[in-house]
């Protein structure tokens, strides 16, 4: 479905990704694990075209998308939940959803589905999104991305700073999306969260993919995680 191979990416002259590669299929959750600064966010931004890959290829269902202008990539069905949520803070909840709906021309039906999925948002449509609680903001960031009805969903630390019940809700939503044949790339810091949900885990070190491991293996032997990243 989505394949990255041999991606190099830079900020100015500083190289951040070195030969980044991965593949994710429909109905699969691929987790990226790595230390702070390993290049997880940069990898997702490169997929979105927000950081330009200098070499390598990114293909979606066989089409090369690395050469598309950034604004065309979401139209191909890639939804993005950025690290730190990146809502349009001065806009209302309804307007943030509207931006997601506009991306691929979705209408009221999709909007209703989002509001059913995240009922907290329904009561707050007119509220300026910057004044939402952290958990509500994350719901909105998820809903905004799901408004694309994406076939690939990129999630960058969606549980950062959330209470357990919110984390559980997000896990449920993500699991359900997997059942609906969405391909999911999830960046997570918390190993327990990763192990409870991932199908495969890719360890990233210094902008380079180290090892893709079946999540079942890690669940059997959590000590492996220690060996790969030394975070736990």
């Amino acid at each position, binding site marked *: 479905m989505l394949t990255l191979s041999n991606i190099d990416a830079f900020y100015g002259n500083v190289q951040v990704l070195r030969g980044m590669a991965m593949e994710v299929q429909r109905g699969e959750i691929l987790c990226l694990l790595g230390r702070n600064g390993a290049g997880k966010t940069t990898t997702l931004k490169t997929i979105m075209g*927000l950081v330009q890959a200098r070499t390598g290829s990114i293909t979606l269902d066989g089409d090369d998308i690395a050469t598309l202008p*950034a604004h065309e990539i979401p*139209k191909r069905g890639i939804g993005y939940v*950025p690290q730190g949520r990146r809502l349009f803070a*001065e806009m209302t909840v309804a307007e943030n959803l509207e931006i997601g709906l506009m991306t691929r021309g979705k209408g009221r039906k999709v909007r209703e589905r989002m509001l059913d999925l995240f009922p907290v948002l329904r009561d707050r449509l007119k509220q300026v999104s910057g004044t939402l609680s952290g958990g509500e903001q994350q719901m909105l960031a998820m809903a905004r991305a799901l408004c694309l009805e994406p076939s690939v969903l990129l999630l960058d630390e969606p549980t950062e700073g959330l209470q357990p019940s919110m984390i559980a809700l997000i896990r449920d939503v993500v699991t359900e999306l997997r059942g609906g044949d969405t391909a999911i790339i999830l960046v997570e810091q918390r190993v327990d969260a990763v192990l409870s949900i991932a199908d495969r885990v890719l360890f990233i070190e210094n902008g380079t993919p180290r090892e893709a491991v079946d999540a079942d293996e890690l669940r059997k032997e959590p000590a492996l995680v220690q060996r790969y990243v030394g975070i736990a």
Partner: protein
Amino acid sequence: MDLLSYLPFTLPHPALLLAGVLEGTVLAAVLALTALGLSIVFGIMRVVNVAHGEFYMLGAVLAWFITHTITGAVGGPPWLGFAVALIVAPLIVAAIAATTDWLILKRLNYDPEATIVATIGILYILQQLALTFYGPDARPVEAPFDFRVQTPYFGYSGYKLCVVGAAILLMLVVWLVLTRTKIGFVMRATQYDSETAQAFGIPVDKVYAGVFALGAGLAAIGAVLIVPIQQAHYLMGGDPLLLSFIVVILGGLGSLKGTLVAAIFIGLSDGIISTLYEPTLAKILATLLVAMVLVFRPQGLFGARAA
């Protein structure tokens, strides 16, 4: 007994005062349009467009070319030449601005400092082009119509009053577009977070080109409206640039409401002081006011406090 005779200065004659207010209103209207262009470009793109006054100048010079061609060469009536100029000159200026954005600003990644230097360069290029092709003379453009509106003291130019009306109408349109249309919505999203806007399918490059064109077009419209009152000259961009900057700083960078209020204030006081005393005094006071605002309220009178 006449209390007024105790004042330490003499009050101006009401006719003079009225003339000052009327002149000030015309100036305020055109200034508001021009400053609005500068303010929108800064607000959405974070670009300080030093060449803004030259887009104004281009509007006036093109208006001269267009009216001159239509009335002079073809022999059409003055109102026709002016009507064509009012539509075509701003469109040409907008197209030049969009091209400039694409050729220069985009390639600088809209870096705030690099674009200041670049727009200074654009200022001189446009000025020299105007000098080359238009020449050093100031040339008049005939007003599309003229009639007198009788005040208690004197007859006043009906055309000037129409300029005020047209400016108000245009600003209303711009405001409606920015707040009520999908285009305005997309512009605001780009302003708040251009990267995330791209990740949701907004073609930020096109939005920037459009915003830069809109800003320049507004200056050009202001210039076409003013050119039957002042003459078209290749150096005429300096004053509107200075006044627009004063207005935008007073009003608060990026605040549209502040821009309007400040334009009205600066325009009126400039008109009144220029008429009663002299133009230089008006500029000195405005500059002093800006200095005070920068010291005591750097975010401007209406701007949000810097984060």
